[in-house]
């Protein structure tokens, strides 16, 4: 099976966890120097397959051929020694060490005495490695002071300094803006020219088509197929992933414009938010676009009363309100689905029912005791209405897929009948099928009169689902477009600050 061009073949790999067949007879084959995308819905087995490759999970059966030879990879250290590195979704650098220390962690150049480190060699080597990829970061910079995109670059440098010739990137773009993504892609292309093989895992199917040579599709732990990108369309790959014809990705229904539900006047905070003016109408989906760090999340947090504001007014239903805490915001009919849903939106160890009803307990309690029958009825209603896929209401939220977790959070807010719902990156890390469902849900809520403010870094999403688009740059709103009015490039131009280039990293 292992032919000349295949740098890696994982043949007939199976793996089961208690109660789940994670991988069933999957064969995965990658050519030298290609960018090979690995796609599939959550739970399709991508992560398990890559964990087997990088030695952190043992396989049940199957063979791994590396450079044509059957190879055992039984630990992450072994994978590293064999030249396989993984850039994890949660970046794995140590924040309070500097870049050089991170790159050479665990293999620091030895100093004059045993146990000492030769610091000058370490920094010189780090500088050289960074320069090789034209990355203008000083090796003595503390990692905590770098942007997510820069940290990723450092991780790639670290992998290459380990002489990795196969690099696995797990959702590398999920926290990057469009521009940073472009920069990452050009880095990936130059790595490819140097003969490095890249396995690219992404939920963003457009990106797969922008960068990959071939794509392997997994579904429910089985191999669906391998196709060259140049020969198929996006729809084809999506069908392979979901195994069915997918409904429209952006099922937006027109809603006639109604009265203003939320009005923000001259909102400022520190130097991060400056003179924000916005209006959100009933039944409207207002998309908030911008680069990572433009202040979109800060704006959402300020409106929702999480962070205090220095100046400005917030009006709800033509009434000036004073929102100094999330409790107040909730009482005024707002809901907020945060970006980090597992950390900020859910009680992972608690059941679906408890998560859905936790904010509505006031309504469900009598003399301080929860009316469980009523709570169950309420939760069951939302599980059906939002099509939350869970075996029962007792299931812990931890065990649900990302898309279903997101629906649980939305259900929690719906139980309070909000007038305004703020969604921060509502579909990040969610597979395509569930993504379309969340979009449909948003459209449906808007139709029922909820005003939705959506922050998203995915321009197709912003453009597909919003009635109106606001663009944010350096803490200010710099552009406004009606639905269908703007092109991706135009929005990007505004998001990047027009002609002002402020790319401090030289490409």
């Amino acid at each position, binding site marked *: 099976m292992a032919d000349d061009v295949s740098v890696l073949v994982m043949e007939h790999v199976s793996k089961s966890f208690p109660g789940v067949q994670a991988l069933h007879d999957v064969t995965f084959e990658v050519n030298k120097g290609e960018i090979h995308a690995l796609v599939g819905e959550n739970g399709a087995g991508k992560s398990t397959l890559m964990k087997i490759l990088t030695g952190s999970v043992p396989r049940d059966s199957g063979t791994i051929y590396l450079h044509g030879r059957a190879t055992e990879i039984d630990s992450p250290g072994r994978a590293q020694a064999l030249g396989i590195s993984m850039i994890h979704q949660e970046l794995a650098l140590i924040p309070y060490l500097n870049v050089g220390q991170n790159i050479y962690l*665990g293999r620091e150049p030895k100093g004059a005495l045993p146990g000492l480190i030769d610091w000058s060699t370490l920094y010189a080597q780090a500088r050289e490695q960074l320069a090789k990829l034209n990355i203008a970061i000083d090796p003595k910079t503390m990692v905590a002071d770098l942007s997510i995109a820069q940290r990723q670059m450092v991780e790639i440098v670290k992998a290459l300094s380990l002489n990795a010739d196969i690099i696995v990137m797990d959702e590398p773009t999920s926290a990057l803006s469009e521009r940073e993504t472009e920069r990452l892609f050009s880095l990936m292309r130059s790595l490819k020219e140097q003969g490095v093989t890249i396995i690219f895992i992404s939920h963003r199917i457009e990106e797969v088509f922008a960068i990959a040579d071939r794509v392997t599709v997994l579904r429910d732990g089985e191999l669906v197929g391998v196709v060259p990108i140049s020969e198929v369309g996006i729809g084809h790959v999506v069908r392979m992933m979901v195994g069915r014809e997918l409904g429209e990705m952006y099922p937006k229904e027109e809603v006639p414009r109604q009265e203003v539900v939320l009005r923000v006047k001259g909102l400022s905070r520190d130097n991060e938010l400056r003179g924000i003016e916005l209006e959100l109408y009933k039944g409207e989906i207002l998309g908030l676009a911008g680069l990572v760090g433009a202040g979109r999340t800060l704006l959402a947090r300020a409106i929702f009363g999480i962070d205090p504001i220095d100046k400005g007014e917030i009006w709800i239903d033509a009434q000036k309100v004073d929102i100094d805490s999330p409790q107040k915001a909730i009482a005024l009919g707002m809901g907020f689905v945060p970006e980090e849903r597992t950390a900020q939106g859910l009680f992972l160890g608690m059941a679906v029912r408890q998560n859905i009803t936790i904010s509505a307990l006031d309504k469900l309690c009598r003399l301080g005791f929860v009316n469980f029958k009523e709570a169950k009825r309420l939760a069951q209603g939302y599980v059906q209405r939002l099509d939350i896929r869970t075996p029962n209401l007792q299931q812990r939220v931890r065990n649900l897929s990302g898309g279903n977790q997101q629906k649980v959070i939305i259900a929690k807010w719906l139980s309070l009948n909000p007038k305004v719902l703020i969604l921060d990156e509502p579909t990040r890390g969610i597979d395509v099928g569930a993504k379309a469902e969340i979009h449909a849900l948003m459209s449906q809520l808007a139709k029922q009169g909820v005003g939705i403010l959506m922050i998203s870094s995915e321009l197709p999403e912003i453009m597909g689902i919003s009635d109106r688009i606001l663009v944010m740059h350096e803490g200010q709103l710099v552009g406004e477009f009606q639905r269908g009015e703007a092109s991706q490039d135009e929005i990007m131009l505004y998001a990047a600050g027009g002609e002002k280039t402020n790319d401090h990293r030289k490409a």
Partner: protein
Amino acid sequence: MTIEKPNPLAEVLRRSSVLFIFIGLCLLLSLLSRRFLTFSNIINVALQTSIVAITAIGMTFTILTGGIDLSVGSIVALASALSAGLIVKQGLPTYPAMILALVIGATLGAIGGFLIVKGHLPPFAATLAMMAAGRGLTLVYTRGWTIPIMLEEFTFWGTGNLGPLPVPVIVLIIIFVLAHLVLSRTRFGLHVYAIGGNEETARLAGINTDLVKVAVYIISGFTAALSGIITAARLWSAQPNVAAGLELDAIAATVLGGTSLFGGVGSVGGTIVGALIMGVLNNGLNLLEISSYYQKVIKGIAFILAVVLDIYTRKRR
């Protein structure tokens, strides 16, 4: 948005904020009490601080890895009882007795560390257990009685002077210099910070995290035992209930000194300043004749402020 370069002056100020608190406190006390800024009082403060500071240096290692060592007070008591008792009761020569006490202190630290890495106990639980066990062993060994010791070769380590400096202060300086070099210059030191920053990453980078973690508890046990010997030598006796609550002082000094309770950030230099703040505060309250009962309350408040400061600076980053 133009990336804001950290203002170097502001950075220095932020990092040395404890130093300024310390200087401010000294100025305030010298205004309030004439006796504060006298040579004998300064030496007195240094002497009183040394026991907390030596213990806190070991504590700094454990907190840097994201752990904590609650057993230090008990190890001080045990080492103090053993060093005095082995000489007085078992008739061992001075130095073998002292070395044995250090080894047993380090061993208790090792057991705590072992429970943490192999038993997967949270550090606070493992060292809380060692705290109880250590105090128990001390009471068993002393049968609850004070062991007096007058032997000058031994008491020299608590009450002697070399030149103008008391011996405990010299021991503190040596331990500080060693700890500082280990943390800032060696692979081991870097790995201590790495584990506190992100243990999983450190493990994947090939660092033997279990070994490093056990080592920091051994260091903490060792410095606590050293403090124990000095305590007995200063008091001319080993008292079974000595150093109860010392763990709070050591943790407070460490955190006041800028070491994050979450691990990964800090330095022993800061810890020394932290210990000095606590020492000066104690001394000042004594000079101002404030009841020692209130002193504990004030210490508690200082500790809360230190932790709040830690959390606040973490958030800002």
